[in-house]
């Protein structure tokens, strides 16, 4: 195996007509890796935060996500219960352990399990790490309290987004992730609308293998 690596790297260097790079060059390239230099950022995200939130709502809607706006985090359990009733779904959900502190007890009819998803789960509720206005994209980060299966196995995926977590471009969301100082998470899911396919006669169908419905609860305040 080490042999194959040496042969491939050797062949690349022969093709580039040089040996291993000199130390000053590798230092320069290592610096390029460490500085997270941004390339071109589209102008559409050059606006104030309030306008970014509006852009996020517009773009996520265009990608077939549905959106409900809430005043405060404690409204989430009620909004979830309403959503289940509207969609005729059973009052049984699986949620990220990270959302355990919400006042779920206000809704005693709702059965909530805090864990990863199983194949039989119909509805999941998860928090978003950030929301990217540029394309209406959610950034979901894996961790012990935010298992990634919740984002893919259930038919309906409900995502809680704090409006203070809405950013302009992907790069702003990456900077927030790096600012955690927790290294790279195992999985980062950028999610833009529900699952879809165009594989049969180029006709777009929602709900291929992932969720058929993506519902965003956009919360203004923290309370």
């Amino acid at each position, binding site marked *: 195996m080490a042999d194959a690596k040496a042969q*491939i790297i050797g062949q690349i260097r022969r093709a580039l007509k040089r040996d291993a790079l000199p130390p000053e060059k590798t230092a320069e390239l290592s610096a390029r890796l460490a500085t997270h230099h941004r390339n071109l950022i589209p102008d559409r995200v050059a606006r104030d935060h309030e306008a970014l939130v509006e852009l996020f709502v517009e773009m996520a809607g265009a990608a077939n996500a549905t959106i409900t706006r809430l005043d405060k985090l404690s409204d989430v359990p009620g909004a979830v219960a309403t959503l289940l009733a509207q969609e005729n779904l059973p009052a049984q959900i699986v949620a990220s352990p990270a959302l355990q502190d919400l006042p779920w007890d206000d809704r005693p009819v709702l059965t909530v399990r805090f864990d990863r998803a199983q194949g039989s789960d119909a509805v999941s509720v998860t928090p978003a790490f950030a929301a990217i206005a540029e394309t209406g994209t959610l950034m979901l980060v894996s961790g012990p309290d935010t298992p990634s299966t919740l984002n893919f196995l259930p038919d309906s995926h409900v995502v809680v987004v704090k409006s203070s977590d809405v950013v302009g471009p992907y790069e702003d969301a990456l900077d927030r992730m790096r600012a955690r100082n927790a290294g790279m998470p195992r999985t980062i899911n950028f999610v833009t609308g529900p699952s879809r396919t165009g594989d*049969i006669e180029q006709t777009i169908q929602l709900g291929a293998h992932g969720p058929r419905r993506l519902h965003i609860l956009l919360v203004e305040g923290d309370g």
Partner: protein
Amino acid sequence: MLATSHAFKANAHDALHDRVLQRALLNLKSGFQDKRAQTVARLPEWEALRERGREIKNHTLAHLDFYLEAYAAKVEAQGGVVHWARTGADMRDIVLEICRSVGARTVTKGKSMIAEEVALNEFLEEKGIAPIETDLGEYIIQLRHEPPSHIIAPAVHLTKEQVADSFREHHTMLDAARSLVEPRELLDEARAELREKFLAADVGITGANFLVAETGSSIIVTNEGNGDLTQLLPRIHIVLASLEKIVPTLEDATSILRLLARSATGQEFSAYTTISTGPKRPGDRDGPEQYHVVLLDNGRSNMVGTEFQDMLRCIRCGACMNHCPVYSAVGGHAYGWVYPGPMGAVLTPTLVGIEEAGHLPNASTFCGRCEAVCPMKIPLPKMMRHWRERQFERHLTPNAARYGLAVWGFFARRPALYHLAARAGAWLLGTLGRRRGRFASLPLASGWTNTRDMPAPQGATFHALWAARRRAPGR
């Protein structure tokens, strides 16, 4: 998969007379071309982003050794394993060894062109391991034992009736009375069938759209969510990627991601873009216990530093084939191997040899649309010309074409004789065809006149007109 690119002319001929295929190919324009044009029009920075994408990849390729080593070190620092495969056979053996290490019986697969390139499915089946394609298009063609006809829409050559027939044949539990007329019904049937497979698989294999040197991550871009279920649920995740997938930083990846979905499907962003870094962490409730990356060379390192290096910028969006008049007419199977369309016409001869694939660089009208829509600004027509030159140098061009070129070359080097012959020829054809104004058949030109008339020349030759214009007063 065994290449049949040498038979391109016969394949293309059959494809043109295949009515069902021709009906399926009509979907290309509304499905891909129009949507791309609309999304690109909404992004004023498009041309600048293309230029930036080109620069990022050129910089990476010039320092490919450094970035690959930096990437591999990062993967390993986070508990992943990197395997280096010089050939397709090496890659197949590495995958088999990993599968056997956990006694795997079934393997789910996200869409991977690299897996197609090294013919992984056939190999695993031979060794008693069942590979299950989970991308809807790949799943359909796996049932039909067909190769993909498009790099992002593998079943674009099929109609919904053909898909329904395949499901009825293979889904033995399927109720005969159940309707499978609409795409929605077909999708629901496949979703239910595959859900079981996702949950039961021992190993999940995906491709990679990018490898990130900064973080040691692999990135997949999908719409169905099948790639994510493939890599999340089994105990082992294997990433198959070729060397040129590497980019330096996450910011370089996001920059090129702005080009990818818009070029491929005309979406602002694909439904799922997933960055994976190493295996399950302490405390994680899901995710794979092992994370392996198999890096494939398979001739790519030989392209570095040659006139074909630009091809290594390709991000496999499929825009070139979606906009190609030849691909639109004959579909992907005629190209006879894994990569069709203009990118395939350049890449296939590099990977399977010019002797096998010499026809493909000729499958072009040189209209230039492929280069105009390529998000990475790859000069595809120029590289097809390079291949034609090599084909000529190696005496692989058919004799008729060689003699034709020799005759043309003789006259082209003698301008006075050329002008005389052109005048005489034009006069002769003009006189013979004066009555009808066109020819239904002409000696040595049956390739043209079999399907359409040749107009009879009128008036002076181009050279004569040009000379007259330059002499005209007032110019």
